[in-house]
């Protein structure tokens, strides 16, 4: 009688084929049907975590997440959410928004050899390389950029196909549009933001459990919410408009492109967005929605589940906001107000019932409707932003500002949101001017004044230029005027007068300076498009 030999010790039958060869059941016989063997291995370290475990992994692996914006926040959020095994990960960005070399210090899902590739496509490649078990798709982000397209789905219809949305965009208009879409579509929203060394994070449209907001208000107990005749809402499900019903003035909005950002700062916030999304998604779908204001949801609008995660030790950051101060290395979590009784989108008194036809970009600029809509600017944006102006200052050759300048409460300050319009005779094309400037006569006949902030001037500058930041420019005009007289190469008999030429980064602040100079009697001109249009000048 033959006795089967022992299996060789060096090759345990771990693979299904090996098991079958030995007459043993396949590996998936040992696991639940919805948690295949490869998932056991891949997710073992989070499966071992008692607060997470197989039930939540199964919920996560059967859930759908939409990340809007594939930049500094979207990259880390997608990498971690994909690595953790979300079932379906959709990545949206503005069509035509491609990876640029200036993105790579913080947008870590992209690579040097993918510069020029659409960001959503590039990030999808990165996530698939980490975890082939995730269904990664690329979504046209036009609907989140405020551009209504004939026949196109509304933003709320698009988000309704997902279990959670991560707002990783970079501008005010997109953030309000996505908030409204998520409220109307009944989807929780994980909203992150970062500029400079600061970051902020919260989860909107998710019922805060009693645990979430356990800290009672200080001061007098049970202080009523004042300033409204409407009764307080029972809901703890707040949205962006509950907390910030009015958008900030464009002059007070900073962006990474103008104010700068340290890469790990959006990295921290993006990773935390992934964490909050995992907590939201890992809430088993069987958990019913907690009761909300009876009148709040529109008929047929589903409410996301809530509350259950907190019960098991995973507390979603709902009705709280996490503040990250990267300069000090400090985290603070603060308690937000409850739902606003007269919220424009999530209250029974709502006035916003659809995102279709709403010009969010004009609204964010402080205009209900743009009578003459500015044409879309063909620039790459980090977030989903096509018709939505990005928050950076972009010049156009026409001199008409197509987007609000990036003046902000974060550096650098800029005196006005929109630079003045100058007559064409006061403006020079960058390439033609540069060609004459680099001749001896041209340089001698020019006082080139660079009005960028000092930090940018130190970064790179045109030889022979002088730096007078725009903030102090007007006061410096009389002194600069004295330097216009007596150009050393002025020919015999020629007026030894130099021309003041003003340049900035993109041709917006230079217009402010030209207007100031001419107001003081100096016939200055500026460079259209600024140093960004200067041939050979380093791009930054």
């Amino acid at each position, binding site marked *: 009688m033959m006795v089967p030999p022992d299996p060789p010790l060096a090759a345990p039958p771990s693979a299904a084929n090996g098991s079958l060869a030995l007459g043993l059941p396949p590996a998936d016989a040992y696991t639940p049907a919805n948690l295949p063997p490869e998932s056991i291995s891949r997710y073992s370290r989070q499966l071992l975590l008692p607060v997470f475990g197989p039930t939540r992994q199964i919920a996560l692996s059967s859930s759908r997440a939409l990340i809007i914006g594939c930049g500094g926040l979207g990259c880390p959020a997608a990498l971690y959410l994909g690595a953790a095994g979300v079932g379906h990960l959709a990545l949206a960005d503005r069509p035509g928004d491609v990876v640029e070399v200036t993105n790579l210090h913080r947008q870590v899902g992209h690579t040097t050899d993918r510069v020029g590739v659409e960001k959503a496509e590039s990030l999808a490649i990165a996530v698939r390389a980490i975890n082939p078990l995730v269904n990664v798709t690329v979504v046209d982000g036009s609907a989140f950029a405020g551009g209504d397209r004939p026949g196109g789905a509304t933003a709320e219809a698009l988000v309704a196909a997902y279990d959670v949305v991560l707002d990783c*965009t970079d501008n*005010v208009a997109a*953030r309000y549009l996505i908030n409204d879409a998520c409220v109307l579509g009944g989807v929780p929203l994980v909203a992150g933001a*970062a500029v400079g060394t600061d970051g902020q994070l919260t989860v909107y449209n998710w019922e805060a459990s009693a645990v979430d907001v356990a800290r009672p208000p200080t001061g007098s107990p049970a202080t009523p919410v004042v300033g409204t005749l409407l009764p307080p809402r029972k809901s703890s499900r707040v949205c962006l408009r509950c907390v910030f019903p009015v*958008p900030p003035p464009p002059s*007070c909005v*900073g962006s990474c492109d103008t104010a700068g950002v340290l890469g790990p700062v959006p990295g921290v916030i993006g990773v935390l967005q992934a964490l909050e999304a995992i907590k939201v998604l890992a809430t088993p779908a069987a958990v019913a929605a907690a009761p909300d204001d009876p009148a709040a949801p529109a008929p047929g609008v589903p409410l996301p589940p809530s509350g259950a995660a907190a019960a098991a030790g995973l507390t979603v950051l709902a009705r709280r*906001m996490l503040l990250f101060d990267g300069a000090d290395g400090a985290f603070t979590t603060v308690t937000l107000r409850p739902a606003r009784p007269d919220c424009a989108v999530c209250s029974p008194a709502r006035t916003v019932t659809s995102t279709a036809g709403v010009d969010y970009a004009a609204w964010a600029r402080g205009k209900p409707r743009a009578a003459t809509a500015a044409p879309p600017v063909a620039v790459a944006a980090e977030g989903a932003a096509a018709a939505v102006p990005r928050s950076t200052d972009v010049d156009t050759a026409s001199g008409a500002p197509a987007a609000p300048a990036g003046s902000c*409460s974060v550096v650098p300050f800029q005196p006005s949101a929109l630079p003045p319009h100058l007559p064409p005779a006061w403006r020079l094309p960058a390439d033609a001017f540069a060609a004459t400037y680099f001749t001896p006569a041209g340089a001698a006949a020019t006082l080139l004044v660079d009005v960028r902030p000092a930090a940018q001037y130190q970064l790179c500058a045109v030889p022979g230029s002088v730096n007078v930041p725009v903030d102090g420019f007007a006061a410096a005009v009389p002194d600069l005027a004295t330097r216009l007289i007596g150009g050393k190469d002025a020919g015999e008999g020629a007026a030894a007068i130099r021309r003041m030429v003003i340049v900035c980064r993109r041709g917006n602040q230079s217009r402010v300076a030209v207007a100031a100079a001419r107001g003081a009697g100096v016939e200055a001109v500026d460079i259209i498009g600024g140093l960004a249009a200067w041939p050979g000048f380093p791009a930054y």
Partner: protein
Amino acid sequence: MTRVTVRFAGGLELLVGGRKRVDVHLPPAPSATAVGVGGGGAPPPPPAPAPAVVGDLIAHVRAEVITERHDAFATAADAGVRPGILVLINDVDWELEGTTAAALADGDVVSFISTLHGG
């Protein structure tokens, strides 16, 4: 005199020369000083000072603490602050405390945080 600590974040610190925490001694509210000039005899007991409220603090900070771009904090006509600034009293949204009418006590920390939109 109410002593509170004012925090600036989200870029607002740049309106105060980069300082993220500023200790403020808030003068008594006008209602507390306008009362009590008596004639002869024993002076009347000082009236209980009206507690300073956050609205007083905002006006004081705008006038005395903010060093540039004052309207990026609050306009003179505003009762509150400009849109997009989250106001916290001891890390709780001021909407829970009565907004501008919230009373302040010594040691309170009032935070002004500009909301961020970058990414």
